C-alpha cells in the first residue's frame, strides 16, 4: 500500500510505545500516534489527557484536549490541579509527547512567539502543559513535521526546555528526567548524542535521502554511524490509522449538539 509522509510519522511514533507506557497525550499528531498504538500492538497502554482523563480509550480522536469523548471513555477523570500535581509533577508518567512551532538541535521547543517576546511577529498559542511535561515525564518524544522554518539552529524562545545548550545542562538545572530522547518527523528519527546531546539522525524513513533531511533542517545535521531505515508501514497499521481518521473526520464535521 502507498502511504503519505504524515502517515509514516504517525506510525513510526506509535511503534515506539508499549503496553507498559503511561503517556501524557497532546492533541494532534501525538494523539494519533498514541491511539494508533493502543489500537494495534499496545492495547494495554495508559493514555492520560491534561484535561484530567486517566486511562482514556477514545473511539475517535478528540478535536480538543477536553472533548466529551475523552471523559466518557476514561477510567476516571480528575481535576486539572490534581492532574498537574499528583500525576505529572508526582512522576507517574513514563512518556510525554511534545510538539511546537520550532525545535532546535538540542531539542528545545518554542511554542510561544516568533520574533521578540515583547513585540512578536507571530504570537503562537503558548506553552500550556508543555513546560512541565518536558520536566516531569520520565522521557519525552517530539513529533513534528520537518522544515527549515521549524527545525532551527536556535529557537527564538525556549518554551519547553530540552537539553538547553547541550551537555549536562538538564542536570545542572536540577532536572532528573531523561528529556527528549526521540524526535520523530515525517522524514526521519533523531536521538540526542549521549554526551553533547545534539540531535543526530538515527533512521531515515523509506525512500528519504540524507540530502533531503539536510534540506529540511536549519543546522548542519549529523547522522549516526549505524544509520538505519525505518520499516515501511504495514497494511494493518495503515488500515487502522485511516479508519481512525475517517471516523474522526465524520464526527467533527457535523455539529454534535
Amino acid at each position: 500500500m502507498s502511504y503519505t509522509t504524515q502517515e509514516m510519522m504517525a506510525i513510526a511514533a506509535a511503534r515506539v510505545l508499549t503496553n507498559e507506557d503511561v503517556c501524557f497525550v497532546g492533541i494532534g499528531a501525538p494523539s494519533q500516534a498514541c491511539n494508533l498504538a493502543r489500537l494495534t500492538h499496545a492495547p494495554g497502554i495508559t493514555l492520560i489527557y491534561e484535561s484530567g482523563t486517566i486511562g482514556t480509550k477514545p473511539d475517535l480522536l478528540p478535536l480538543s484536549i477536553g472533548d466529551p469523548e475523552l471523559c466518557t471513555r476514561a477510567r476516571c477523570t480528575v481535576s486539572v490541579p490534581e492532574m498537574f500535581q499528583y500525576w505529572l509533577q508526582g512522576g507517574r508518567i513514563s512518556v510525554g509527547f511534545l510538539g511546537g512551532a520550532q525545535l532546535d538541535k538540542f531539542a528545545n521547543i518554542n511554542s510561544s512567539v516568533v520574533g521578540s517576546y515583547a513585540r512578536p511577529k507571530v504570537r503562537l498559542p503558548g506553552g500550556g502543559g508543555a513546560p512541565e511535561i518536558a520536566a516531569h515525564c520520565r522521557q519525552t518524544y517530539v513529533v513534528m513535521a520537518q522544515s527549515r522554518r521549524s527545525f532551527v539552529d536556535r529557537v527564538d524562545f525556549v518554551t519547553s526546555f530540552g537539553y538547553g545548550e547541550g551537555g549536562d545542562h538538564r542536570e545542572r538545572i536540577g532536572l532528573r528526567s531523561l528529556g527528549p530522547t526521540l524526535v520523530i518527523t515525517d522524514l526521519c528519527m533523531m536521538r540526542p548524542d549521549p554526551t553533547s546531546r545534539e540531535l543526530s539522525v538515527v533512521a531515515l524513513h523509506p525512500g528519504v535521502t540524507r540530502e533531503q533531511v539536510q534540506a529540511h533542517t536549519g543546522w548542519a545535521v549529523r547522522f549516526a554511524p549505524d544509520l538505519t531505515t525505518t520499516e515501511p508501514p504495514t497494511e494493518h497499521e495503515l488500515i487502522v490509522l485511516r479508519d481512525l481518521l475517517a471516523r474522526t473526520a465524520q464526527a467533527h464535521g457535523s455539529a454534535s449538539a
Partner: protein
Amino acid sequence: MPRFLPLTTAVAASVQDGMTVAMEGFTHLIPFAAGHEIIRQGRRDLTLMRMTPDLIYDQLIGMGCVRKLIFSWGGNPGVGSLHRLRDAVEHGWPRPIELEEHSHAAMANAYHAGAAGLPCAIFKGYYGSDLVGNNPNIRFVTCPFSGEPLAAVPALRPDLAIVHAQRADHEGNVLIEGIVGVQKEVVLAARQALVTVEEVVDDLSAPSPNSCILPHWTVTTIAVVPGGAYPSYAHGYYGRDNAFYTAWDSISRERAPFQAWMEQHVLGAAPS
C-alpha cells in the same frame, strides 16, 4: 444562599468595568452566555484570567472589553490560532492588551492556592523556560527543608469567578460533572462567584458521595441558562460543537467578518 437572577440582571449586578474576572471551564462548561452578556453590556478594562482563553475570550478581546489577559494556552484547540487575541497582541486592535503568561501547571496551582487561602503557589516547574525572565510573577524560592529551588507564582484571587455547571437545587447547591477542570478551585478562590446552570432541580441527584458540589454558601449568584456553555458543552446535556470551533477560524480571521458575526449573533441577539 445565593440569589437567583435572570442572566441580564445577574451580569449587571456582578460585573463592573475594571474588574478582574475568571470565566473558567477546561474546554467543558465554558460560560459563553455570560460572556456574551458582558459584551452586550459593554464592559471595559477588564482583567481576564483563564487557562485557555478559548473562543469566549477571543470574542471579548475582539470587542474591546479587555485590558489584560492572564493565561497559559491561547489557541483554538485542535484548530489553530485565536485570531482576535493575535490581532490585539500583534497590532493592538481594537486596543493594546497586556499579557501575563504562565504554564498550565502554574495556573492550576495558583487557583488551588487561591482556594486554599495561600498567598502563593509553590511547585516544581518552569525549568529552563524563557517565560521566567518575561513574567515578573514567576519567581523561585528555596525549600527550607531540602534546599531545592521551587517555582512560585502569586495565588489567583479574581474579583469574580464565572462558571457554567449542570444543575443547582433550590437552595443553590451546584453540581459539576465530567471534566471538572478548575471549576471548584476558581469559585473558591474568587471573592464572588456567578454560576450559570442548565437547570434548577428539586434534588441534585449527585451520582456519588464524592461528587463535585459547590455548597450554596460558596456561590453568590445563580442564573438559569439552558445551553449556556454552547458551543463548548455540558456533559450529560449536550455535546461540543466541534464544527463551530473549526468554523470560528474563518469567522474570526479578519476584523470585518468578525464584527459582522458578533453584531448578528451576540449584540443583536436577545439575552438568554
